[in-house]
């Protein structure tokens, strides 16, 4: 089968490897571009959120390249994203595209369905169960390595002396991971990649501002959707930490790792959880970032995202109570890079002023 999948940050490197090693042909989804979005906007419902539109465009693009099957995730609500594959399939059928979407619903909801779909992928690829498990494990290692490398790049970027060095090093490191073919090779590539990033010339005397990034998973994870906000902030000299990584759940060291805790943290502000997507997380994570001494928080969400609207309406109170500025960016097809940049620059200016005046206050005391 010719298989494709949604583009989400750098994860395509691991998914491409996975699809190919199961024994299928992989149609790698192109990074979402203006054309992707235009295609998506043309066929998607007007008020669907931007992830829907980008995915719609991506599916149409990979269909042109000959993809037969799309693998994606389902969901149990109440976020709309869990229904997207159904709607995408409806629209693709209506357009007469011969493209089948296989959506993996959360295994806890329907284990049988989950196994059936896995079985189908494995059988048609011609792998034994043991080989299949090994391939999945290796792909997971790849995702982890990719996340490690990306995280490190965001730590280093605000210190870089020559603008753009870190991003170039990041691509070099990702390329190493891309070429690795076994758990052992991935580990080596990871070490080597981290080294490449660490070797970027840095000015360690800087004391960068720290900004946390919270919000809806797709626009947080897909740089092409959020106008490379982490790189933009990094190059303004701001250190960013984002709440969501594909491998977040397995990380004990990250500031934000366990979902139950997040709900408890957010409880004084919203008594219901979950409310779909990362709505409650955005509230809880803002509180955690404030407690960890971050200078500010950026909330990223697609325009008309239901859970994030609930979060946005409650965040002003969190912001007041914890004395942490929050900038909400709702992203849609009209959002331009320059607009995002201007708002971020103003936000960063504000954070710098706050830091200075706080320092002065301390000196006076």
């Amino acid at each position, binding site marked *: 089968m010719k298989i494709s999948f949604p583009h989400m940050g750098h994860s395509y490197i691991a998914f491409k490897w996975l699809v190919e090693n199961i024994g299928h042909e992989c149609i790698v989804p192109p990074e979402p571009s203006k054309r992707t979005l235009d295609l998506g906007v043309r066929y998607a419902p*007007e008020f669907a959120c931007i992830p829907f539109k980008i995915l719609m465009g991506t599916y149409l693009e990979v269909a042109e390249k000959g993809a037969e099957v799309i693998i994606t995730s389902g969901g*149990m*609500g109440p976020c709309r994203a869990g229904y997207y594959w159904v709607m995408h399939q409806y629209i693709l059928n209506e357009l007469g595209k011969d493209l089948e979407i296989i959506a993996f619903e959360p295994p806890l909801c329907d284990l049988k369905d989950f196994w059936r779909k896995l079985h189908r992928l494995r059988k048609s690829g011609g792998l034994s169960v043991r080989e299949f498990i090994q391939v999945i494990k290796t792909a997971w290692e790849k995702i982890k390595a990719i996340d490690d490398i990306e995280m490190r790049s965001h730590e280093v970027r605000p210190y870089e002396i020559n603008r753009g060095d870190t991003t170039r090093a990041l691509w070099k490191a990702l390329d190493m991971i891309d070429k690795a073919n076994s758990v052992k090779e991935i580990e080596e590539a990871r070490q080597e990649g981290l080294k490449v990033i660490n070797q970027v010339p840095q000015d360690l005397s800087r004391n960068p501002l720290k900004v946390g990034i919270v919000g809806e998973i797709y626009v947080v994870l897909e740089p092409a959707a959020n106008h490379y906000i982490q790189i933009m902030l990094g190059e303004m000299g701001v250190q960013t930490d984002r709440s969501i990584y594909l491998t977040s759940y397995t990380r004990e060291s990250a500031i934000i790792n366990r979902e139950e805790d997040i709900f408890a943290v957010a409880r004084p502000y*919203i008594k219901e959880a979950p*409310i779909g997507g990362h709505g409650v997380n955005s509230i809880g994570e803002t509180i955690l970032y404030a407690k960890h001494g971050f200078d500010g928080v950026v909330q990223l969400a697609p325009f008309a*995202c239901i859970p994030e609207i*609930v979060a946005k309406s409650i965040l002003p109170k969190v912001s007041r109570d914890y004395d942490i500025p929050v900038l909400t960016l709702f992203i849609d097809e009209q959002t331009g890079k320059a607009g995002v940049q201007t708002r971020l620059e103003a936000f960063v200016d504000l954070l710098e002023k706050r830091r200075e005046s706080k320092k002065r206050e301390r000196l006076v005391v």
Partner: protein
Amino acid sequence: MAKIGIPRTLAYFLYFPFWQAFFTELGHQVVVSPPTTKAILDRGVEDAVNDACIPIKIYHGHVAKLIGKADFIFSPRLVSLRRHGDFGTETFCPKFLGLPDMIRVAIDKLPPVIDTRIDLKPGKEELLKACQETGDMLGHEGKEVLAAYKKALAVQKRFNQLLAKGVLPHLALDIIEGKKKEEDLNRDGFDLNIAVVGYPYVIYDPYVNVGLLKLLEKEKARVYTQDILSNKILNKQQKYIPKSLFWYFSNRAVYGGLYFMKQKDIDGIIHVTAFACGPDSMVDKLLEIECNKHNKPYLTVSVDEHSGEAGVRTRIEAFVDMLRYRRATR
């Protein structure tokens, strides 16, 4: 005795009889906000987060209207009314889930909010528990609450029976309150049958949809909505779509639409949707595609802060003309 304020929007149109009877039976006075007006909407637009949809903004406006008139605002956290959907996880729209928290943050000088959590997924008996909790907050004993609960159920049942007879909810509410008599309802003189699907707070609030139902009546079209169908009929439609939606009101609208588009005597379907409604972006496209498949005329009326009566009327008239023409040529 306390004054309990209930906003005249959202769940009001389907579940008000229950809560009115419940609070009245407990000896309280129920204060309902006046029907939606421009002033209410404007106040809502001011208070609510700007990205919210019209119904949520209007809700904020209604709540603000009750300040000074009620001792408590009754804004239950509507989570779910049944175990339904492919994974049994059906809920209300996420904005409903966070609504009590949203109004607390957004509106100043708010009286205490009764935000009883209503989640009937585990079973119908949860409703009694929710009532007990509400009664507790107002200082009532279990026995009193039980009696009020039973009375409320009976009133709601009468209301539901009226719906089953084809009486639309806003008229059924009038009948329950004694403002209108069942016999007076106009049932003749229609020559078209149009199904209107959508959320109760959009279809039955004449301010939001700029008098859509009246317009249709004037055009001699008899209106059917999903709310006059029994749950049994609605739920049967589940099997015609690959996966049911996650939201209670959306499922009702979709199932209603699916049912009506298979009925020969229904001439056309109108879906009324509020600007920037999240769930409706799915509902609308799904109904549109399914209506195409069933060769049933379909019209989407999208309403927002700026909807004008003329705009909606023009579209309705054109649609009705088209349906008449279609009927004549068959």
